[in-house]
């Protein structure tokens, strides 16, 4: 299990736990003290990220697309912040 914490400018903290499969996301859990509306969307986002290559630009656009398509509102964190935290957790080799 790979883990990372990423502190967003302004104070919120994102935490990621993930497993990798062939350099892609095998499973992921995103936790933290940010706000997402509706709240239940977090589970859909985690599912949408499975199979996603661990590349910051691809991750950020995958998250942004999910947010736009599902009319999700994020407060205290951006798709780029989530992407950065995922890279921090799983960006290395192995």
């Amino acid at each position, binding site marked *: 299990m790979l883990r990372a*914490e990423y*502190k967003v400018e*302004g*104070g*919120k*903290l994102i*935490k990621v736990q993930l497993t990798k499969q062939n350099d892609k996301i095998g499973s992921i*859990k*995103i*936790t*933290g*003290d*940010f*706000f*997402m*509306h*509706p*709240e239940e969307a*977090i589970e859909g986002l985690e599912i949408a990220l499975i199979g996603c290559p661990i590349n910051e630009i691809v991750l950020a656009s995958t998250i942004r697309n999910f947010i736009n398509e599902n009319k999700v*509102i994020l*407060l*205290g964190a951006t798709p780029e912040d989530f992407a950065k935290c995922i890279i921090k957790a799983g960006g290395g080799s192995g």
Partner: protein
Amino acid sequence: MVERWRLLDTGLRDAFYNMALDEAIAIARSKNIVPNTIRFFRWEPSAVSIGYFQSMEEEVDIEACNRLGIDYVRRRTGGGAVYHDRDGELTYSLVVNEDHPLISRDFQKTYETLCSGLVRGLRLLGVPAEFKPINDIVVGGKKISGNAQTRGMGVVHQHGTILRDVNPKLMFTVLKVPSEKIRDKMIKAAEERVISIKSYLGREVSFEELKSALIKGFEESFNIRLLPGEITYFEEQMALKLKAEKYSTREWNFRR
């Protein structure tokens, strides 16, 4: 005519009931069974609540809580972990229809508007409170109130805490302090990030005095009248059901 809202004061209740009743009021409001409502409540036993997106194991020292008889519960709102001291803290919740003029589609703006009642109430007590985005109220840069909001079923639900008195030692016994935040603040003592009404004013402000000031603050800020009311039968039954089936369950509290 000035708009009338319902005022509830449910006193000391356990964490699971408190969170369940908040949701029950929101459901009742969505069905138009009850008017817009502000509720004051406290926690017995003292409790830790965590944000919807947080991990219980990562945020809370479960062993310390069990040892000290402190409850832990997941909220339906996002945001951070909070220690709710039985004797130190007052909690409020606010349930209002989403189509009310106070409510903006912009969440950030709505936080500021809804927090303005608390800010005004604290200032009436002589505490120079200010709103600090995203969801805090601060005095001289130190946090005195944290707030969290959710929406659904056409209803906005915001709840938050006001530190009347603070016990930082206990607070940081039951909360696992996020290391990065601490590092960020250059090893500044955790105690220095929060302030209570008592520590600012140098005197004890009773719960009754605090509630009176906040009632006035909400009334003046929102241009409403708060009329003391009762929980409806529907809300009580719904709260008991949500407590049993959701907020007191391991499945809910440890789901992330």
